[in-house]
Structure formats: C-alpha cells, structure tokens
C-alpha cells in the first residue's frame, strides 16, 4: 500500500453513530412503535403441512368483544393468477401473495390462513381460537427424495418445471445448467477423480429480533408503515404490489433492525397489517412470536449435492461436475442458482458443468441467508479439494494456490475475473502462524476457501451541509452491520472534516431516493459510492462559493483538507467548510446534494479460514479450539466492522456445521421452534475468532471497497469438517456434526470389522 495516499479516517475505528442508542436501549426496533388507536394483529396458522381449505367460518371471532377486524385470503386481491398461469404456475409476485396468506390451499405447517385485529394481544389470540377452518388434509412431501419419488404428492399440481422441455407437472420448480468446456474430456485427462454426495439440513439465519411492524391507514388511501426489515423500499414495493396501491401513497419508516442475514428481505406481516388496518379503521401492530418466526418465516432449506472433481498427478484441476438439489419450500425459489454459480468459482477449471434443481416441498417458503446457496456448495467442493490434496500428498493450501482464480481466469459462472484477491488470501493463510502451530491429541486442523459475488444494485443518497459546518447524510439502507459508521468515515475523509461532524440517518421512503435492500454485502460499496458522489458535488459547490467570494474563476479553486484553496495555495487565506457553510445563505443558498446510481464494478470477494477442532472420542462432542478467518476486503473502511462481519460469519458457519438444524417431524411440524433446541452457538462455544484483513483494492470503487458481509459464512462448514477429518480420519458428508452422529461414526470406524 506504499504507493497510496495516506487516509485520515479510512481505516480507523471510531465509535459508531448509533452505538449509544443501542447500548442504552433507546434505539427503536420493529416492536417498539405504538399509536394511541392501535390494535394488535395475530395470525391463524395451518396445523397441516398440506391441506385444501374448504371453508373458513369467522363469525364467532368477529363477534368477540374487542375484535375489530377479521380477514382471510379472500380479502386479499388475486392479481397475479393469470400471469402465473401463463408461466407454468411460476410467478414471484403470485408466490409472495400466496405465502403471505393461503388462498385455496395451506402449503406448510404454519402457513397463514386468517388474521384478526383486536384491542389486545390476548383478545386477538382468543379470537383466533374461534375461527373454524375446515380442511381436507392432503398427502405431503418433506424432502428432496420424497419430492422426486415417482408418484409423489405434488405441492402444486399445476406447475411444470422451468428449464425442462416437455415435462409434466412435478415438484421441480426449475432446472438450470451452467459451465464451460467439456467435463468428459477433462475427466479423461485426470489422474485422480473423486466423486461424493453431500447433504445439509434446513437452518435459520438466527436473527434475534422477530419480524414486527405497525401499520396506519387513512380514509384517503395513505399507508404508513413502521417496520424492521433489510429494506424499507422493498417493504413499500411488495406491500403496494400485493395490495394494488400507488407507491406514492405508501410511506415506510425504517426501524432499527435486530439482525436479518437475508431473512428480512421479504414481507410476511406488512400486507396483513395494512389490510387489517383498512378493515378496522385503526392502526394495527403485529409482532411474530419466536415460534412463528421458526414455523412461518423463511429458513434456508435442505440440500443434496453430488460432485465430481478431476485432477492431474501434479495437482492441476482438469474438470468439475456437480448436480445440486436445493429445497425451495412450498413455492420453490431456492438459492440453487447461486449454488451452481459459486460451487466451482474459486478455481481455474478448464472444464466445468453444474446442474441445479429447485425443489418444492411442504415447508415454509425459503428465504435468503448470507451468501445464499454458497456455503452448501463450498461444503461439497472444499471437502473434496481436501481429499484430493490428501491423495496427492500436497499441502492443502498449496494445492489450492496451484489452481486459484486470478485476474483473467474464466470464472465457472461465465465472466473473466477482474482484479481479485484469491491468491493473496491463500498466501496469508499459508504464512499465518496458526497454519503451522502444533496440535495435541484428538485435535485436527482444516482449511477451506470461499467465494461470493457481492452486489452493486441501486442506491441513493443525500448530503446536507448545516450552517454550523456539520454534515447530515441520508441513506436508504437500514444499518445492519455498522454502515452508518463506514458511510460517515467516507464522508469525513472526502470533505476533510471531523468524523464527529458527520451524522448519518437512515431516511424513510419519502425522504431519500430509491435504494435496494441492505443485502449482497452492498451498502458500503454501492451506497458508499452514491454518498461519495453527492459529497463531491457538495465540494464543487463549496469551491464555487469560495470563487464567488474571491471573485475568481471556479476552476482555480480546489478543495483540500477541509478548505477551499485558490490555485492550491494559502493566499488569500483558504476558506474553511464551517465559514462557507455559515455564509451559504449569502453566497447562493443552502448547500446540499443528492446522488442516485446503479453501482457498477462490484468487487468479488474471497475468504479462507483455518479451523482447529478437538473431538472427544468417547462422546463425539466437537470443540472448536482455534479459528482464523482471512479475507480480502478490498479496503477496510472501518476495520472493526469488517472484522465483526468475518467473526460473525465464521460463528454462523460453525453453528451450521456442528449443531444447527430444523427438526421436522413426519407431519412437517418444526419440533424445535426456539433458541433452546435450535442451537446457534453461544459465546462460550467458540474461541476468539482471529482475523486477517487482506486489502486488494477494487479498482472500480473510489476507496477500493469490496463487500465483506457474506464471504465469511462460505468457508466455515468445510473448514470445520476438514478439521474433524484431520482429527479422526473420518470424512463427514452430512450435516450437522452433532455429538450423537459423530460418536456413531467413530464407533463404526473403531469396530473390528471396519477397514
């Protein structure tokens, strides 16, 4: 980095602007809003995994004192049926509409079938018990095997698979295939070929805050929503679309968000709350219980991946082929596309092909989870890479380095890579003291590499200069991972002012331009770009004001270290930001700027993790005893929040590998709908996650930013599994590695009959 200019704020670690409110409890989350006329909305949910709704009798509920509105799917417009029919049954809006509330069929246990609004939560609960739903229970399918079996019950008898010619109705929502070259040719050139099959179970994003919103409607058709989500424009657009309301009439005010990880990139409650509010003429608040979050919001569902990789004796990859089946839940729409695109992405494969199937089952509609689709794919590839390295007797990091993607490599998903930091990341792993530290008995070390695209998309920003020289920045992205801090840092850096003089506000849908969700690791990159553009506009205006004061051409004035200078010098005395701001009224009016853009040149991300485990040979319990996460961040604007993302992703991946899974019973009911028996790691379960930030700047961003939020959940599963192999000699291909499963495999390996 020696050839780069020194930064004053970029790369430092000031406290976050929203920190005090969050630690003192003053920050307002989704459930913290109230209005004087407010009712409580509650949802009646299907007790069956698959059932036709024959009738719903709501009279008794409506008659209960305190109940102001009752609704069913019949109260929601059916706007997309024709479009869906024309597309073999597949239409995202139609899926969303039917997921928000069932119409003729309940498609999973927990599917919303009716809702009430009453003066208290208790009355609303009692009213739900008075609703009489007559069901015709239908046979259900709960996993990929069952869904694909001949004669399997169909989740949607009218749907034909997209991407398969001339197929009849099935539980396959979609098939897709990508790749280049000819894998058969590549396998013919290979000296070693490994073929394996992997499976993962449904998991939860583990956000702590349940979904919550408050809806207010008026007689003239306006809607105001207070809602906790990853994007209030997304909430506005989906709610308006499902209820057929003009976007200009819907204002969504973002609450703070208590975690999302992809799980809050869709709507569940908002269209219901708005409908109940319109029916009752009162405002309606809805808050899911934890149990509802588990039963009815979107998990990332189960997967099966078959993978085959070929390599020469010298350790050069010749071909990769994979077939991926991902459960998408009751409507399809799994992340199998991203699974296919990422599975071979970290390496240079001359021949590669992946085929994906999106499978419908009677489980909740799947939702995004951090690097959607990639962790399961990496589990398959990186476990096989480990096994290949072992067979070839090559160090696993060296093996990966021999094949690592670089600038110019043809990516398995189509394009050629621009500047990426895959090699630098692997080198940092190889050179880290952790990689060569000694291990004790029953301990083992694993490494794994992970890739994620990161996203650009649309962002808007506003920058207002205040008369006292402070700056207010408007962003359209809920702050999940510390983005207020990184946006403030870039603003202060550009303007050359104090970080404390910048305040960043997450503005509502009426106050800032359209902005896509906080997702895809995009906010510091894309919204950062919009803010920088607006700030530079403000700097131009400041120079013009100074030029006017000095009565010179604006071209002769430039902005340095927080002040306007004539010809870059100190004569006449430069004009500072505070002075120009104070006199703005006299020099042309308030100074402010806006910017709106579709961010191009996204910086793709790579991370590699080192994991040490200790396996208890008598109980099968696995302890992660040391863990190091290495990642190319492009540039770490606020290193603490980059490290926080790396640590958080690692911990989620460790949980996914070791203990997390939704346990569905044979009737499709979640048996562990809470954090006692759905085991995300607690703090004492993991060691301090060490981090190494590699900085290979993204040339397309003013500060070199790449996204950092998703990459770190990609390597942990194979890193843990490879470490367990090193400790025990056993390769695990099915998650999770919970103690009973591990002990059973240890016993098998120890039994006299086994090889």
């Amino acid at each position, binding site marked *: 980095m020696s050839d780069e200019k020194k930064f004053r704020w970029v790369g430092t670690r000031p406290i976050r602007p929203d920190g005090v409110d969050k630690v003192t409890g003053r920050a307002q989350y989704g459930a913290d809003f109230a209005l004087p006329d407010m009712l409580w909305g509650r949802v009646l949910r299907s007790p069956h995994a698959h059932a036709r709704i024959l009738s719903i009798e709501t009279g008794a509920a409506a008659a209960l004192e305190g109940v102001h509105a009752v609704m069913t799917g019949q109260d929601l417009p059916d706007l997309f049926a024709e479009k869906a029919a024309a597309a073999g049954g597949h239409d995202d809006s139609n899926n969303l509409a039917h997921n928000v509330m069932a119409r003729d069929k309940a498609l999973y246990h927990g599917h919303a079938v009716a809702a009430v609004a009453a003066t208290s939560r208790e009355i609303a609960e009692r009213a739900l018990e008075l609703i009489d739903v007559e069901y015709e229970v239908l046979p259900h399918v709960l996993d990929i095997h069952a869904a694909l079996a001949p004669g399997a019950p169909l989740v949607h008898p009218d749907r034909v698979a997209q991407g398969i010619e001339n197929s009849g109705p099935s539980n396959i929502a979609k098939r897709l295939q990508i790749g280049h070259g000819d894998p058969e040719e590549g396998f013919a050139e290979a000296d070693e070929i490994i073929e394996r099959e992997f499976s993962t179970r449904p998991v939860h994003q583990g956000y702590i805050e349940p979904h919550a919103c408050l809806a207010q409607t008026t007689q003239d058709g306006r809607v105001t929503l207070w809602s906790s989500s990853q994007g209030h424009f997304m909430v506005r657009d989906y709610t308006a679309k499902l209820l057929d309301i003009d976007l200009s009439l819907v204002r969504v005010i973002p609450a703070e968000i208590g975690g999302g990880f992809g799980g809050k990139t869709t709507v569940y409650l908002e269209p219901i709350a708005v409908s109940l509010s319109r029916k009752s003429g009162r405002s309606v608040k809805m808050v899911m219980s934890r149990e509802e979050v588990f039963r009815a919001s979107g998990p990332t569902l189960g997967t099966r991946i078959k993978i085959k990789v070929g390599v020469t004796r010298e350790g050069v990859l010749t071909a990769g082929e994979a077939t991926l089946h991902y459960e998408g839940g009751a409507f399809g729409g799994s992340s199998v596309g991203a699974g296919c695109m990422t599975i071979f992405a970290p390496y240079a494969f001359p021949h590669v092909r992946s085929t994906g199937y999106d499978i419908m089952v009677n489980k909740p509609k799947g939702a995004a989870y951090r690097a959607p689709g990639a962790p399961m794919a990496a589990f398959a590839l990186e476990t096989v890479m480990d096994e290949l390295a072992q067979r070839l007797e090559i160090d696993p990091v060296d093996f990966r380095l021999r094949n690592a993607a670089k600038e110019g490599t043809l990516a398995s998903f189509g394009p050629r890579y621009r500047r990426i930091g895959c090699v630098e990341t692997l080198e940092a792993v190889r050179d880290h003291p952790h990689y060569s530290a000694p291990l004790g008995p029953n301990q083992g070390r694993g490494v794994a590499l992970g890739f994620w695209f990161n996203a650009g998309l649309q962002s808007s920003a506003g920058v207002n200069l205040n008369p006292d020289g402070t700056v207010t920045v408007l962003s359209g992205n809920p702050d999940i991972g510390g983005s207020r801090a990184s946006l403030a840092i870039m603003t202060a850096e550009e303007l050359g002012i104090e970080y404390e003089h910048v305040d960043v506000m997450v503005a509502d849908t009426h106050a800032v331009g359209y902005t896509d969700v906080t997702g895809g690791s995009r906010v510091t990159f894309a919204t950062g770009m919009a803010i920088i553009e607006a700030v530079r506009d403000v700097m131009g205006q400041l120079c013009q004001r100074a030029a006017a004061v000095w009565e010179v051409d604006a071209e002769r004035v430039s902005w340095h270290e927080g002040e306007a200078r004539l010809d870059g010098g100190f004569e006449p005395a430069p004009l500072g930001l505070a002075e120009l701001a104070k006199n703005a009224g006299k020099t042309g009016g308030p100074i402010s700027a806006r910017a709106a853009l579709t961010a191009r040149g996204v910086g793709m991300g790579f991370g590699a993790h080192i994991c040490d485990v200790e396996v208890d040979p*008598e*109980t099968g*319990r696995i302890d992660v005893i040391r863990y190091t996460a290495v990642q190319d961040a492009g540039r770490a604007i606020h290193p603490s929040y980059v490290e926080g993302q790396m640590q958080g992703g690692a911990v989620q991946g460790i949980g996914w590998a*070791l*203990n997390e899974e939704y*346990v569905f019973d044979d009737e499709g009911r979640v*048996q*562990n709908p809470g954090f*006692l*028996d759905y*085991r995300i*790691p*607690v703090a*004492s*379960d993991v060691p301090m996650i060490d981090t190494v930030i590699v900085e290979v700047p993204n040339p397309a961003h003013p500060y070199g930013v790449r996204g950092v939020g998703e990459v770190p959940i990609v390597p942990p599963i194979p890193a843990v599994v490879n470490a367990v192999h090193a400790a025990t000699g056993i390769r695990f291909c099915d998650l999770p590695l*919970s*103690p*009973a499963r591990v*002990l*059973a495999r240890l016993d098998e390996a120890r039994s006299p009959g086994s090889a």
Partner: protein
Amino acid sequence: MQYQAVKTLEEAVERLSRAEGEHMPLAGGTDLLAQRRAGRIDPKGVVDLKRVPELAEIVLDDHGYRVGAAVSGAELGEHPTLGQDWPGVVEAAQLIGSTQIQGRASMGGNLCNASPAADSVPALIAAGALCSLVGPSGRRELPVEEIILSPGQTCLAPGELVAHFRLPRPGPRTGDAYLRLIPRTEMDIAVVGAGVALELDADGLCTACRVGLGAVAPTPLRLDEAEAILVGRRVEGPVLDELAAAASAAARPIDDMRATAEYRVRVVGVMAKRAAQIAATRAGG
C-alpha cells in the same frame, strides 16, 4: 396473576394451602415464568419465597450445612466454604443457565420443577442431601431422590414446600463432582448428567460413594450399584469402566430431538466415569 411476597414460612404455607393449588411457590421464577409465558401453566397467583429467611440463607453449624431452597446459584458460588466442601453440588447449580439466570435460579426450584434433566439434582443425590419439607401438617425430612415422582410431578403435599437442603460437613478425604453433556457449552438442557461423591481411605481405597444420574429416566436416579463397584477398590482403570457400564445399564432413557436413547445410555457411563475421576482427585486419591 396475583403476586405476594411472604416473610415467614407459616405465611407461605398458609397462603399456598388456602388457595388449593391455585397459587404456586415462586423462587427465582426461571422455570415458572417461562412456563407461564409458553401457556403451559396459568396459576391464579404466586407466593414469592425469596424473603423467607430459612429459604434465603446458608447456615453452617455442627450438623453441617442448611442451604435455603431459594438461595440463587450466584449466592451458592459466593459462599466462603460451601464450594470447597461440596464443589460438585455448587458446580452443578452454577451450570444452570447463564450469568443472568444465576442471579435468580435456585436448587429448590430446580428440584421442584421436577425435570428429569435438572442439573443440581444428581449432584444433590450424590451428596446425600436431605430435603426439609414444611407443609400444613408440619415438617418432615426426605432424601432428594425421593422428591421427584415423574416428569413435572413431586411427592409434595398440597401447600407443602421445600424449606432447605441439609448437607453434612464432609470428612477430610472426600470429594464430589458433577458433569453433564450438552452439545453447546452453556444455555442448554443436559443430554445426560452424572454426579459422584466419594470418600477414600489413607491408601486411596474407596470407603463410601454415591452416584446420581440425570436425563436417563423419567426422574433423576440414584445408582445403587455404585457402592458395590467402588467400595474397597481404587477409583481407576477397570473399576471406572465397571462404573460406566453400571451407569449405562441403569439408564432407561427416551429418544427425543436432543439425543437418541442409545446415545444417552452410552454417554451417561462416560460422564459417571469422568465425574468419579474428578471426585477421587478432589478426595486426594
């Protein structure tokens, strides 16, 4: 729901028996309030026991310890000698929940909630703790292992409550320990648990021992075979394997989503063996 904080045992018993089971005793509330919120119980009222002196204090005299049934885990840990004399009991109580839960949760509540997986119960069984019960017909004393009848059911009469636990002052070459298996490291329900208390003679031979097992039967168990296996022998090698086998043989667990019965049978032996090793080390063996 009514809430009443009482200051004396008489008041507590009077209140609990008058309301004919509609009022429940409240210690830390970490089970009671969670169950009420989940809709599993709906008491008319609760009687807070934390201000009754006998339930709230730890007394050491010539007869040993009297540990109030409502004393919190945190207070057990802060006592100057209890943790040295009965480290296994205190460790078991302190495994419950988290720092926040420790400020509230009591051993009386842990026992009377009557879960097969209650962590302090196997340790109390191993320690030979006696429960002092007070009810409308007076006071009686029962060993801890006789209190729980089935999941959620105790032998307490209507209006009766646990006032305190009695633990002897241990002799010089004694030690106890409790271990549980959970997939995580805290905030979890024991898949299995085992408590061991034992005494050694000058040659390192076991002279007395008691073993309690958790989460392997409808109630926490006392492993009666333990004495026959350990007494007169060194607590090592094959003796420990025999103990493990006996613990596994005594287990009658169920399959549930937390673990299979097979796994529980297997691992309760491992926990018993390891707890015995720790107890023996503590006894100076």
